[in-house]
């Protein structure tokens, strides 16, 4: 057994939020030692796959109020408005900071940063680095973090399995060093969760293999509530089969969605009326193809029901057509879209439309935090997709998440540092005792166990399919219950799991088994939260309760884990500051407002 490793701040997850938090601590509190624990090398984190851009008010014709109101109405009023205000106000500074760290933002001829429009946004305010924004942000953050040698210590390819809570405070984790299989105790005065989302609990997702909701599950099992888990974002344009993301930027540059009759069907779903693609006012903001993601994904399902979608070997699709943009513009602004379409759909979007269908993309919900990134468990902080602050409410607007991980990554770093300065004691001996139990558990449940009969892959694919069937774009009491029963039985069968690999070095089957457990826990919270919310709002559409119900559900869902049976659900009021709940308006009325001025 290895000795406990001690640092002041422990960050779990090396993606955008984790790196931003680490740098925030290293820059502002050089005396604090930071450990960055990541189950993959930081530059492999899924921030890398974000494409379109990061929102932040920077142009003269834009305003904080406009960004706030877009975000809040996009969220179907389920966002906390104090959090949104903080987010919007700090966004430009964070994006500029990233520019100072070398992020190659696309530019205007004047040399200023260029911005593009994005879905649900009234103004162009999305900063972008061609269509690989997340990639460039992540590498800029990672490479910058290398500067703080001695202050940030990297534990690459370490997989955290348990939060250590002692004296009512989170004081560390147990983590498996994948290279050796050693299970270490990592102790710290404060812990920040930055482990990303859980899109992998669905069969068809844009998310990478690593996005298994680990941090959410760890916190959930430690008694921290998961907030608003029922809100799962479907991105309207994924490639069929693989679920590879075709960025919203394809539409913000002027791409259109058409059904099998060549019709721009979005006009039939309260998203405004189409302008010809040659019209200089196309694409209209907050209308048609630049409507919010929940509405576009829902429109796809309705078109499918009408029989207007196109058959493909991997499920029905509609066409995303960008042919009318010039080849030069596609090469300059959307090179990755073209690369992906050519490699994975076998078509060149300069000459052919891209087949697309909605695909699970993002978890609006996550670990419950306040606007400082603090969770209800003292000493535990969270930021990024694994957290729910909440600024995304019932539906996140595209390009808010990359900014979110910067703003709240930095805030969580600062809060954790402040907490660490006030709480210097760490109860190493007690932590080690807890860690011993965890080591024993993992050995007995997986490594030395024999005679189990359930196969990992079988359980996992049953989970995928059940989630897809019961908790997709449209849900009912019945579908959710059915899926919940499946997940319960999978929990049961998981106890009888048998893995082939009993070795220590890079036992990736063991990590996959632990990830499956995390996914089952997240799925449980998600399903139960969805069952209890008997209304339709944003991405949560209950066909048995089709209307929004502010009188009962203008509230955040908090799911608390219980050892026996489904989670306990509590509600917390949404914070309203200046934007009272109203109707979400896209298209006609929105464009009237735009042409009026």
């Amino acid at each position, binding site marked *: 057994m290895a000795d406990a490793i001690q640092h002041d701040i422990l960050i779990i997850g090396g993606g955008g939020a984790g790196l931003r938090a680490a740098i925030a601590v290293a820059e502002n509190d050089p005396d604090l030692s930071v450990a960055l624990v990541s189950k993959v090398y930081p530059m492999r984190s899924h921030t*890398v796959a974000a494409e379109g851009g990061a929102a932040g008010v920077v142009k003269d014709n834009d305003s904080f109020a406009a960004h706030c109101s877009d975000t809040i109405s996009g969220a179907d009023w389920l966002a906390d408005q104090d959090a949104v205000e903080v987010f919007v106000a700090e966004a430009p500074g964070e994006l500029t900071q990233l520019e100072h760290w070398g992020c190659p933002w696309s530019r205007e001829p004047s*040399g200023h940063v260029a911005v593009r429009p994005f879905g649900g946004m009234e103004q162009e305010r999305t900063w972008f680095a061609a269509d690989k924004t997340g990639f460039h942000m992540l590498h800029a953050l990672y490479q910058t973090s290398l500067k703080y040698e001695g202050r940030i210590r990297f534990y690459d390819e370490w997989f955290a399995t348990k939060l250590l809570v002692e004296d009512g405070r989170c004081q560390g984790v147990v983590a498996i060093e994948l290279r050796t299989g050693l299970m270490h105790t990592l102790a710290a005065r404060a812990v920040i969760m930055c482990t990303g989302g859980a899109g992998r609990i669905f069969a068809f997702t844009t998310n990478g293999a690593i996005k298994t909701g680990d941090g959410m599950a760890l916190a959930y099992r430690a008694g921290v509530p998961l907030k608003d888990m029922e809100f799962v974002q479907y991105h309207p344009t994924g490639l069929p089969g693989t679920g590879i993301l075709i960025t919203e930027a394809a539409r913000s540059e002027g791409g259109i969605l058409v059904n099998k009759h060549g019709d721009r069907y979005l006009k039939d779903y309260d998203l405004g009326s189409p302008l010809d693609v040659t019209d200089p006012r196309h694409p209209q903001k907050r209308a048609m193809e630049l409507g919010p993601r929940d509405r576009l994904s829902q429109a796809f399902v309705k078109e499918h029901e009408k029989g207007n979608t196109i058959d493909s070997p991997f499920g029905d699709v509609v066409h995303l057509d960008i042919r009318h943009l010039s080849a030069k513009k596609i090469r300059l602004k959307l090179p990755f879209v073209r690369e992906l379409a050519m490699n994975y759909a076998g078509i060149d979007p300069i000459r052919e439309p891209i087949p697309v269908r909605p695909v699970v993309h993002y978890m609006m919900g996550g670990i419950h935090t306040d606007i400082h990134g603090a969770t209800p468990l003292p000493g535990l902080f969270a930021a990024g997709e694994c957290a729910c602050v909440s600024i995304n409410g019932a539906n996140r607007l595209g390009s808010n998440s990359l900014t979110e991980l910067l703003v709240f990554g930095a805030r969580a770093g600062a809060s954790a540092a402040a907490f660490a300065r006030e709480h210097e004691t760490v109860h190493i001996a007690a932590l080690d005792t807890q860690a011993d139990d965890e080591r024993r558990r993992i050995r007995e449940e997986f490594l030395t166990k024999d005679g189990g009969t359930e196969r990992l892959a079988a359980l996992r694919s049953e989970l995928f399919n059940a989630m897809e069937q019961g908790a997709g774009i449209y849900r009912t009491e019945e579908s959710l219950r059915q899926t919940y029963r499946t997940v319960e039985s999978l929990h049961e069968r998981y106890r009888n799991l048998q893995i082939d690999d009993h070795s220590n070095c890079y036992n990736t089957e063991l990590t996959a088994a632990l990830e499956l457990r995390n996914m089952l826990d997240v799925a449980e919270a998600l399903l139960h939260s969805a069952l209890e919310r008997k209304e339709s709002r944003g991405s949560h559409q209950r066909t048995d309760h089709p209307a929004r119900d502010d009188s009962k559900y203008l509230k955040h869902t908090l799911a608390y884990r219980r050892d026996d049976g489904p989670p306990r659900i509590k509600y917390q009021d949404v914070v309203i500051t200046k934007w009272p709940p109203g109707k979400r308006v896209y298209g006609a009325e929105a464009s009237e407002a735009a042409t009026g001025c």
Partner: protein
Amino acid sequence: MPDTTITLDVFRFQPDGGGHARRSTDGPTFKAYRVPYHEHWVVLDALNWIKDELDGTLSYRWSCRMGVCGSCGMMVNGVPKLTCAAFLKDYYPGTIRVEPLTYFAVERDLIVDMDGFLGKLKSVKPWLIRENEKPVDEGEYLQSPNELASFKQYSMCINCLLCYAACPVVGAEEDFIGPAALAIAQRYNLDSRDQGAAERADALSADEGAWGCTFVGECSEVCPKNVDPAGAIQRVKVDNVKDWYRKLLMPWGHR
């Protein structure tokens, strides 16, 4: 299983033998797996199928399966490839040999030791260096689209290390900083916002730096993101030559 199958010959190695003693100096062993053949499958899909259905002990790295996270680089029939972008149909009906990236130490199966690379990356100071940092509230550093274009290509590196597995110098000289790290260094040197070329010069102008390169050019051939590290390195050499003569002719100069 469907009628058509394809065989993958997969490199296997476990330092702790999965319980069976085996020394790391033992030669490589290959294990053949028969996998269903689908036209749209990539080598990574086949590996995942093996791990799920046949043999849970096979270890490898992967994540995004869209060619941007850089995890899943392996040798496919002797050529370094991202396995998420290597389609079975390009090899069918032949057998596909899958090995870990060459010139790296193998940790297990298809997983190689990346620590050496990270050290090399850090040695070229891959971050923006300024003499004076401008406060954030004074806004961005201006940069024209052409200034951006001059380094953009070299900023596309995903650290997949295919270029290292293609470079014989990496194979012969363990300390050679290598294509990706040198290209990233040049990316910062060419960035109009950066003033750190002099700080990077020690590493770049050393024998382990750009001068280690003999311009085989294979790094650029295998690069899945068209970064062209070979070109970057030659340009480092040109800059280094200018520096060398400048120092020779004007020893009193600052740089």
